[in-house]
Each structure stands twice: as C-alpha cells, then as structure tokens.
C-alpha cells in the first residue's frame, strides 16, 4: 500500500568516541606517559556533532519544523493566507471530534485495506516462486518491481486513460468478447475498487522486493538439508520461509495499514475525491486549501498522525517482534 518515506533517526553519535578509544588492537596506554594529543582535547566530543550538522539541519528544517508549525497552526484559526491569526486553543479539535462526518471517510480506507491483503499475498507468492531457480527469473523480478519506480502522478494519468469509457480496459475486454458498458470510475463501489486496484499494482513490487530479500537471506544450506530430508516445496515454505520473513511481513503489515489510512496521490489525481472516493487526507487538503480552514486541517493532520501511531503501537503489542532463529 502507500508507503511514505520517513527520515531515519540519526545514529547514536556517542557510541563513536567511546568505542574509538578501546578499539581492538589499540593497546591501552597509561594516560600520564602519553603526550597530550587531539584525542584528549575536550572539543573532541564535538567532532561527531560536526559531521552530523548537515543531516541534522536538514532533518530539523524539513521534518521537525514543519511538524512543529503544523501543531501550532492546529491551535489557531489561520486561513492560510492572512497575516493575522489568533490562538483559539482546542477549538479545532473540539470541532473535529463533534463532527462525525469528518471521520466517515475512513470507510474508504477499508477498500485499500482489503487491497493490501491482496497485495501482500500476491507479493509473497511471487517472492516465493521467484526465490527458486526459474528461467527468466531476473526478467520477472524487473517486471514486478517496475511499477514502484513510476511516479505516482504519472500512474494516476495512465490509469485514467485505462479506465476511460472506451479506454484500454474496455478495448481489452471487447477483444475477449466481453462488451462491458460499465463506467469504471462512475459509482463509488467500482471507483474505489478500481483505485485500490491501481494501488495494488503500484505497491506490490515494493513488498515483493522486501520479501525476496528476506527469503534470500535464509542460508542456502537449510534448503539443501530440507531437500535431503525430502521436504516438499510447500513444506519448505511452511517451515523455512514463513518464519524467516516474519519481521519483514510484520513491517509490511504496518506500512499497509498506515498507508491505507493516508491514501492520497492516486485518488486525488484520478477522481479528485469525487463520487465517494474521498479519503481522509484528500478531505484535509480540501479543508486547508479550498475552504481556507488551515487550523482545522492541521488538527486533522495531527489526529491522523496520532491514529497511525496508535494503530502501530497496538499492532506491536498484539504481534511482538520475536527474534527469529532458524538454525
């Protein structure tokens, strides 16, 4: 499902200087006997920070400041343009939680959630099949991963033509002798299914690559041993592959759920949220940029962030990340 790029947390910078002094092969020396060097200089502790300056500056400027601003806006009545804004306390949150219609759009996410089940199953299937020795294996890997490399906006336009009246889908169906006169994006059910289908097409490749990587990291001897013991392919999957990729699988599920809750690009480009395809993020964007309710929209964004954090937390509690030990 939708997968947003997050900046990785910065590596703990202080493990650097501590271990540096006790590197293996570096004989411990008596401090007094050694001449004073740069290693003892107090500024030395600053060195890792100097290295981190640029990435941290970027991280703060482009991630934390905007988020900080957003949280601040969510407590104001700002319209997005005016130089004046006044602090309104929790009014935006109060409005948000007293208007159930604002949360009704989460029903649309169910389509994407269902689609992500299909997506993970398909990715798992292809990853398993292609992890065995097959002819044209790399070609198929490329074909499966390719959609993920295409820009989401371009995908939106491609599929707009695909679903058009008399477009690609209709022509292909008529070649097969099915003369459908269905407007694919015409009613909420079929439109949401179509959009979720596009989403599956786009993100299967990503899941596939993650699964394939995990499967290939399982040591080859295990397969050999299994084969010698006469295990079938199905048994190999059940007892080797499935437990081996469990952490990646649980990561994929988290990404799928948070992605389903925050779908944006594809429906926004293809239908603009018309015909019952509006998602929570599209609704937020419309509140902010059409109705000039930047404050309320920021509150929506904060709430979505909290919902996703909560869902992730619950999921981690239900399915804890166990250490996998195959050997």
């Amino acid at each position, binding site marked *: 499902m939708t997968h947003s790029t997050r900046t990785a947390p910065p590596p703990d910078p202080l493990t650097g200087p501590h271990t540096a002094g006790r590197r293996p092969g570096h004989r411990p020396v008596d401090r007094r006997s050694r001449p004073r060097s740069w290693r003892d200089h107090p500024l030395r502790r600053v060195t890792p920070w100097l290295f981190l300056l640029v990435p941290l500056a970027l991280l703060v400027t482009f991630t934390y400041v905007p988020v900080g601003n957003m949280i601040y806006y969510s407590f104001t009545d700002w319209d997005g343009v005016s130089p004046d804004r006044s602090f309104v306390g929790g009014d935006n949150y109060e409005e948000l939680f007293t208007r159930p219609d604002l949360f009704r759009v989460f029903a649309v996410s169910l389509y994407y959630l269902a689609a992500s089940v299909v997506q993970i199953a398909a990715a798992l299937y292809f990853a398993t099949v292609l992890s065995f020795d097959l002819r044209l294996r790399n070609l198929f890997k490329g074909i499966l991963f390719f959609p993920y490399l295409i820009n989401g906006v371009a995908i939106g336009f491609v599929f707009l033509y695909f679903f058009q009246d008399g477009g690609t889908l209709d022509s292909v169906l008529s070649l097969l002798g099915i003369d459908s006169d269905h*407007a694919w994006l015409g*009613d909420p059910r079929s439109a949401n299914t179509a959009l979720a289908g596009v989403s599956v097409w786009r993100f299967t490749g990503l899941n596939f690559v993650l699964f394939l990587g995990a499967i290939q990291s399982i040591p080859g001897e295990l397969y050999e041993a299994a084969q010698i013991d006469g295990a079938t392919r199905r048994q190999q999957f059940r007892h080797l592959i499935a437990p081996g990729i469990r952490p990646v699988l649980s990561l994929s599920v988290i990404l799928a759920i948070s992605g389903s809750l925050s779908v944006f690009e594809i429906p926004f480009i293809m239908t603009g949220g*018309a015909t019952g395809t509006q998602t929570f993020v599209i609704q937020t964007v419309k509140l902010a940029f059409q*109705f000039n309710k930047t404050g309320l929209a920021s509150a929506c964004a904060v709430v979505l962030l909290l919902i996703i954090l909560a869902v992730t937390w619950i999921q981690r509690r239900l399915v804890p990340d166990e250490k996998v030990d195959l050997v």
Partner: protein
Amino acid sequence: MGRKILGTALLTATALLAVAGCGGGGTGSSDETAAPPLNANSVSGTIKVLTNRTDLVQDGTMKKYAAAFGKEYPRVKVEFEGITDYEGEVKIRMNTDKYGDVLLIPAAVAKGDYPKFFAPLGSTGTMEQKYRFTDKTDVDGRTYGIANFGTANGVVYNKALWKRAGITEWPTSPQEFLADLKTVKDRTGATYYTNFKDGWPLVSPFTNSIGSVSCDAKASDNLAVTDKPWDTGTDLNVIDTLLYDIVHDRLAEKDPSTTNWENSKTLLAKGRISSMVLGSWAITQMQDAAQKAGAGADSIGFMPFPVQKSGTYCSTLLSDYQQAVNIHSAHKAAARAWIDWFTEKSGFSEAQGAVSALRSAPLPATLEEFVDNDVTLVERSEADTAEVNAIDNASEIGLNKQDYRQKLIDIARGAQSGTLEGYFADLNKRWADAKQTAGS
C-alpha cells in the same frame, strides 16, 4: 545523557524555527497609493508581473506586450512569471514579501486583507467612473485592483450542429433547452458535456450565472442575507436544477468521471459535443479549435443562459482576475503604469474576445450576437462577496469549488443516493447554519 542533549537540541531548534516561521508574512506598512505616473520618463525600474497565462508567456505574446510598453516607458523593464497552479502557488508566496510587483489577486485572499497585501490604486469614487468591476476590490472606499478583463456568462454551443438538427432559435426556458438537447442528441448523437473530471467548468460558469436568471445585479450579494439560497425559484435553484436535469435525462456525456477539458474543445468543434455552460472567454479558444478541425470559426455560437425574465435574456458580466500592485513593491509607479497601459492600450481583452475593464471600450466581437438580440448584460455587484465567501467557507459547500456540483451530478446519474429536493434542503440547512456561525 547524549540522547537527552540531542533531544533538547532538536526541540529547541524546532521551537525557535517554528516561532520564526510564524513571524513571517509581513504586513505592509506603507499606505502610499500606487498612482499612475504623470510623465512616462519619470518612472524607472524592473517590475515583475505574475500571471496565470503560461501559454502567453511561452509563445512570446507577453514579451510583445512588454516591448510595446517599453516604447512608451523606456526606463521600465517588465519581466513575466507564468505560474501554472496560479492560485495555489501565489497564495503561499503571499506569506513573504516577494510576490511580484504586479499580480492577479488570488481568490483565496479575504477581501478585508487587501489593504495588507496591495497598494491602493485610487478612491473608488473616481475609479468606478473609468473602470467596470471596481466594487470587487473596494475596501473602505479605496480600490485595490483593476480587472484584466470581464466575461459574460452563457452557453457555448456548436451552432452548425444545432442548425443541422433543425434548431435555430435560442431556447427561452430550461425545459426548452432540455428539449433542444434531446433533439440534437437524437438527430446527431452529440451530447452536453459536464467536464466533471476537471471540475472547474462546473464551478465558475455556473456560479457566475447567479444573476442571469433573476436579472438582478445584486443576486450574488443577496446570498449574504438569505437563509435558503436553493429555495424554489432562486438563481441557484434554477441553475443547479438545469444541470441535474441534463444529467438525469441522459443528455450529458456517458462517463463523466473521465472527461478531459482540452479534448472537449476538439469534441465541440467536431460536433461530438453539442454545448457547454461557459464564460465568453472560452469562445475564442473554441473558435481556434474549430478552425483546427476545419469547421470554421463561425460554427461556434454563444447563447445566454436559457431563461427569460419578462421577455428578455439576461447575462451576468463578471470580472476575471483583478490586477493589483504588491504593497512591498519598490516600483509602485512603474507597476501602476504597466496595469494602466495593459488595460487601456495593449489590446489584450480584444484579443481574448473579452469585455474590457474600461467603461468606454466597445463590447468585443464575440458578444455581437448578444448585442443583436438585445441580451441585457448585468454587471453583477460584488460588494458583499467577502461576506458571501465567509459563509460559503464556513458551510464547506463551496460555491466556487467543484465538489458540491460533482455530488449533484452523482445524485442525478444515480451514482450516489439522494434526491434533488433532499440535496437542496441539505445545502440550504448548511448555508443557514454557517450564516449563524460566520457572524460577520
């Protein structure tokens, strides 16, 4: 401890920058009027003009205007910046000081904020004698913008096609229009086109027609005081009912969800589309498309909204974007000189087939038929637009957004549940509620 330092550092930096960021968006302090220069040689400087017409910037038309302007004002240099997503981008840029010297006022800016962003151009009392549409930018007796052009609202149709179907007279009522659409569809296969996917053709041409039905210049202002804008017989009721009926009677395109505006021009020219509700600005574009399709420019016709008020047609006349001078501009006189020259001498509005902002200028050739048929042009008052927009935004209906008419079409074609009456009742209720809370 290290983690704590990192965390504190990040938090402090974030807080500082957030506060600094919030301080942005300076308010112009200058109250100086951007008056037209007395002498062409007295103004100098380089001015930047923001425009939504990227097509004219790219094909060099704007450069030609700048060159002609340069002959009169040799010491002023004009630069253009064409912006595709004009509304979205300029709105955000207006949080800084740098939004060009001359710009088109984005619709999102609240009228009451004009004095904070733009230099006044003169007192409304004197401006309105020379220019049309000044009430749209009038704040406390001063005018902040001059329209780049105005458009009449009506229906663009393929005249040759309608003639082939045997219709030569303009319909005088919505029922007649529906009957005509049906005749045209039965005889030629061409349908009405909603442009549902692109959305904006459902917005301005329809909402701008408020006033065409009642022939009332105050029709839009009245929205600020009514509790039921969609009540039987009101402008919005008639306009939206017509759209509903067109779609409901299957007289529109088969699949609205995948329409394409650029393509619709060719389809109209080729006679696959019979008509679209649009502003008169669209006529020249349709004529171009007709010429490219080999049909000849005169195959495109423009009729008023199909309603008559005591035997005459009415058509609202509205301004397009308003040109304004940035309050932070260092070359206000030069900027004003450009606006005046562009409005009076460039020939831009004639080239666009649009109505000039100058009261003294004649109507364009595209509206010849309106003049010949005595269509009353209603120059709609925009005096209370600020209040109307405030209610509109509070209600989240969006008279100037596509969503509510897209839903109307969805209901009409059965894609979403509901009835026309129920939908209008809901809209009325939301409007009335918002009017209470918007409280201005």
